[in-house]
């Protein structure tokens, strides 16, 4: 059974490109345009195997989303895919429970390698 990945980004191009590349490698993809929308989907019963989220988003940003989602999904890996390169923010995300940090633009091959590393057997 294919693994489900939830992508959270306010950019339509990012969602579409990641969706295509992940589906190409056999993953099932769900998407949300901000943290709140993603949180609502999770509360409605969505159980992703991995979450890939942006940081700077309207309504609810990535950090806030991690804070809110961790009590619900304690062990689901969360990758941050962002243009942000500030080391302090990286440390903050690590403390909040993020699994990894990827700086945009990240090559599709690298992304797939990271995802396969986090989700072994895919």
């Amino acid at each position, binding site marked *: 059974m294919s693994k489900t990945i939830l992508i959270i980004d306010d950019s339509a*191009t990012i969602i*579409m*490109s990641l969706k295509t590349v992940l589906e190409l490698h056999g993953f099932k993809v769900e998407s949300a345009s901000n943290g709140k929308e993603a949180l609502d989907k999770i509360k409605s019963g969505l159980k992703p195997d991995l979450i890939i989220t942006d940081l700077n988003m309207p309504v609810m940003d990535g950090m806030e989303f991690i804070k809110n989602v961790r009590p619900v999904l304690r062990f689901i890996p969360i990758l941050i895919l962002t*243009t*942000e390169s500030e080391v302090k923010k990286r440390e903050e995300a690590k403390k909040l429970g993020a699994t990894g*940090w990827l700086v945009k633009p990240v090559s599709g*091959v690298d992304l797939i390698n990271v995802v396969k*590393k986090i989700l072994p057997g895919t």
Partner: protein
Amino acid sequence: MKKYVWWGIVPAFLISTLSAIICQHFPFFEIKERIFVTFLTFLLLYSYFAIKAVNSATQNYESLRKKYETLKIEKRGMIPVFPLLKLDSLAYCQQQIKKMEKAKEGLQKEYENLQKRINTYEFLKSQTSELPKIFKLFSEHLNLIIKITENDVLKITKQVEELYNNVKILDLIKKSVYSGQKLIEVISNQLEHNEKIINVLENLTYSQKTKLQDNFARVAGLVEGIKEFIIFVDDIKEIAKQTNILSINAAIEAAHAKGYGKSFAVVAEEVRRLAIRTEEISRQIIEQMEKLLEKADEEFQEFQRQLLKSEDLEKLEQAEKMVKDIEAKFKEVGHIMIDLINKIQDQQQLVVDIITDLLGRIQFQDVVRQKLERVIEGLEELSGYLTSLMKWLEWPDTEEKPLEIQKILESFYQKYVTVSQREVHERVINKNIVKRKEAPKIELF
């Protein structure tokens, strides 16, 4: 104006000192003392008012002019109390007027300069009030660029998606090829089976060949035996002939012997009959044997022909050859298909890699979008800053003083998200680049 005040005070001080010295030598000092003090007081008061009048005259040119006119009219009525204060008011005022006129000219120039500055300010104000519009224009252009880029990138992504769907077709081909591969495996197994059959057939053919050759040899031996037997029977026939001749001769000799040879003649007759019978039987045997031989020879010839022809063996051999040919063809097809499968797999992997890489690169649009949005935010902040600055320039008492531009720049800097944005800022604003420790692009915690 102060110098005029000093002009009044200094003479008053000198005069009072001189008066005191003079009063010391006066015999009637005590009588005059009060008069002198009164006079001195009066003098000081007079100096004060006079200087005050001069000061006010210098402060206001028009009033001075009036004062001048007044002084001009009342000059004869003035009290000439002290030599140094016996100023020619008219001359003094004229001097002051000249100064005032010079000052007026200066003021006029200053006024003109000020007017120019006011005009410049008004121009600056009117032009600066247009700047927010220009910033707005730039912002809209940048927003348009973002939208256009986003639309184009979405189109590219859709095209890539179509390409991805083609890859799905390739996947179907791959599956078909996989089925083909399975078929090849089945065929290979069948070929192995066929090979075993061929071996069996070969063995069978060899065995049949050997048997036929053995049979041939046996038949040939039999024919040879018959021939030898015919010769042997022929010898018997010859012996019978000889025996017949001997028996005839014996009968003739018995006839010569007459009564003595009667019994001998009977034996000779019996021998002759036996010889005739033997010859007859031999002849019949020979005839039968010859017929048999002829038939055997025919059969042998036929058998030989059949053996030489050996159609069945030939068919077997042909079948074997055909199976081998089919096997070779299948192997060839199998190799071609395996080669095709490998090439399709390589091509498919290449397409998947290219698509994957391309889709990763499309993220540049989001990076550019965020950078442009930061520029737009900066332009909007700058626009607001200019508006508040112009208001403050116009009404400094009521309007709040805007932030210093340096603080706005610091605010810009705090909002940057990429290393390149910070580097550009540092290069342009701070004129130096702070070397930072580069964090890895991909990091798993």
